[in-house]
């Protein structure tokens, strides 16, 4: 009855900053951090260090994309670190023990991750197990399986081309793995921002009942999101394997908190329905720059812990103060 008018018209779009939604505070925090570090140490402000930081955040960045999806729908995924390890071990086993080509190993690893995510998704939707519990259980179980594959041993030695993915800086700039992360981030951003499936995540996170009544298949969306998160964790595992040229079942221990932290620092709300990839990227960068900078400054490890705590609070608290002023 009512014709949809989807022509591009309307007011001039918002100030660029507004696109970042709740992440302006963290962005300011990130900028302040960078400015401070540039003055405090010569080593910080250089192309090479910038590329190093990108290298260092690749794994976290890829996982944080999946975690953003999960948190957007009001969920949580504690299993990412273990799924990462599982994927690594499956890949290593397939390639080096079963002797298949590494490409096959990568495929099998991603499938194993997807299955983990599927199990979590089914537990959350069909069996109504709270996401926290379902992913906590998967965190334990996937780690156990990862360990059992080689009885806790690491596997080393992959083809050279594989390691080169994380080493070779094409055109002197980007390694394949960093490029992969950037592509993942970009696709996720476009997906969330402009695709109807992406908008569904916001609806589900905002209020699942409203979403269901609006004809959105909440269960399917939920399952899909946990699968994506797990597959991205698996992908991060493969990147890590390339980076370390080895796989070990203890990899990714404790990564879940780092990943959730990056997402939440980036302004995505733990209660779901608000936030986005832009903020997550900032959150990931804050963590990456902070660790890099503190090491460059040669700050003692214990003091680093204190400073990291303070900076995280400042970056997020800045948002509150900014809003209060406005």
């Amino acid at each position, binding site marked *: *009855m*009512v014709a*949809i*008018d989807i022509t591009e018209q309307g007011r001039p779009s918002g100030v660029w900053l507004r696109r970042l939604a709740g992440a302006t505070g963290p962005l300011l925090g990130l900028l302040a951090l960078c400015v401070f570090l540039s003055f405090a140490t010569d080593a910080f402000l250089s192309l090479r260090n910038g590329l190093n930081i990108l290298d260092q955040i690749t794994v976290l960045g890829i996982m944080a994309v999946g975690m953003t999806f999960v948190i957007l729908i009001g969920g949580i995924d504690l299993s990412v670190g273990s799924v990462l390890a599982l994927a690594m071990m499956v890949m290593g086993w397939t390639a080096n023990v079963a002797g298949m080509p590494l490409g096959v190993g990568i495929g099998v690893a991603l499938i194993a991750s997807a299955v983990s995510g599927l199990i979590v998704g089914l537990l959350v939707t069909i069996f109504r197990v709270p996401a926290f519990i379902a992913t906590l259980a998967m965190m334990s179980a996937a780690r156990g399986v990862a360990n059992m594959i080689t009885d806790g041993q690491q596997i080393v030695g992959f083809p050279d081309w594989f390691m080169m993915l994380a080493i070779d800086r094409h055109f002197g700039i980007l390694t394949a793995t960093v490029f992969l992360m950037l592509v993942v981030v970009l696709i996720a951003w476009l997906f969330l921002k402009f695709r109807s499936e992406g908008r569904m995540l916001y*609806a589900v996170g905002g209020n699942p*009942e409203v979403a*269901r009544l*609006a*004809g959105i298949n909440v269960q399917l969306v939920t399952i899909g999101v946990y699968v994506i998160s797990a597959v991205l964790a698996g992908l991060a595992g493969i990147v890590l394997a390339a980076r370390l040229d080895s796989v070990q079942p203890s990899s990714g221990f404790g990564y879940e908190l780092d990943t959730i932290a990056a997402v939440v620092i980036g302004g995505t709300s733990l209660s779901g329905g608000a936030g986005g990839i832009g903020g997550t990227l900032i959150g990931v960068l804050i963590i990456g720059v902070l660790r890099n900078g503190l090491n460059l400054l040669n700050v003692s490890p214990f003091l680093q812990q204190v400073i990291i705590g303070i900076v995280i609070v400042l970056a997020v608290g800045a948002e509150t103060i900014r809003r209060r002023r406005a």
Partner: protein
Amino acid sequence: MTEPVLSLRGISKRYGPLQVLKNVSLDVYAGEVVALLGENGAGKSTLSGIIAGSRAPSEGTMTWLGQPYAPATPREAIDKGVVLIHQELQLLPELSIAENVFIGRWPMKNGVIDRAEMVRRAQEQLSRLNLHIPATRKVAGLSTANQQLIEIAKALALDAKLLILDEPTAALGGAETEALFNQVRKLRSEGVGIVYISHRMEEIKQITDRIVVLRDGVRVQEFADSATPVRTIVESMVGRPLERMFPPLPEPSGRPVLQVSGLTSPARSFRDVSFEVQSGEILGIAGLVGAGRTELVRAISGADPISSGTVKLNGEELRLRSPADAIAKGIVMVPEDRKDQGIVVTHRISENVVYPNLDMFGRRWITAKMKRTFAEQAISKFGVKGRAEQYASDLSGGNQQKVVIAKWLMRDPKVVILDEPTRGIDVGARAGIYDIIVNLAKKGVAVIVVSSDLEEVLGVSNRILVLAQGKQAGILDREEANDVSVMELATI
């Protein structure tokens, strides 16, 4: 009357650039009921919130019993005897009814909560409202009407000297409303000052002594006599003459679109319901609160499962496993509880309007502009007072309701079900919604309207289905339907 218990002088309220209240003054005396009227978004709830200490005014002063009064928290207001029943339900679903009634001021004995006393006193309050539910029961799962009554009981349990009721009857049926009015009259006779907010004009006549009208945040008029003709009051509210409430109904086409037969819910909250709705017809569904109307329409729209019976659309039997199935077939529903089912309050209007229509964008990229344009069409068509980028939580209740309706009518549905469509909607806008309903029917849509407002069902329906305790009591034609015949069926 002597000194007013409460007087407001020059109260203004701004949200950023938006001026919501402008220089409002008001006196409330002991032992009177003042009606506060105005369109959706006129500022009634805002003013109530200021009096009750939950929001601060930008300008102006208040006096309470002759003393300067500026409550910083709701607690201060409650301690002074100023009590507000909020427009939105303020209950804790996981706690018992009794705990909700005495929330924050539980009766104590020897340093611990005196549960027996608490339950006893809560039960007493409930029975004053004719509500016979054990006070030990959890609130979760109660119908909206019963929750509203608990909300009222909560206020009655406080020792109020001034009681503000912000649309307390929006979710209530006639019987519950009457029980409420008995309590209001009792309080009035005990010398309590009462501010009463409602969009139901017939109630205003019944219960209030004096009428104050707000328009766009300005106090525009006062009627000292509640016998003032409704038309005069309404014109003062909307600022223009209002011709009529209900538009003339179209003739149904005679071609049945929706056929329901033998429909029964797993919990048997409705049983063996059969009816059909023709293209161009408006079927009203009436009944007492708890009769199972909401469950029935939720089942038809795929939101709840059914245990037996069939739903046919244009002769084709439907398998409805989810709302998505129903929507795909062209059956859409406006749910009765907007806050929990109709709208994501923390999201923008534009987002909310887009959610049920995501499929209309198909595989295209959805830009912010597209969403805004889409939403702007919807809100301008249905007269929502608000902008597409506004967050739903910043809209007045009535405007939120309009958004919930508007988001569905951007599609091309075959069957539109509206459950309590005008809950909390002002008279002017209500006429607008009736126009929308009738226009839908004129376009050949089959429309179902569920309402506890008898005048409303009678006014917009070609036929009226009456449910009584889950059973189909009968279907009345327009000619035979009136207050008496409907209530007779509803109470068997």
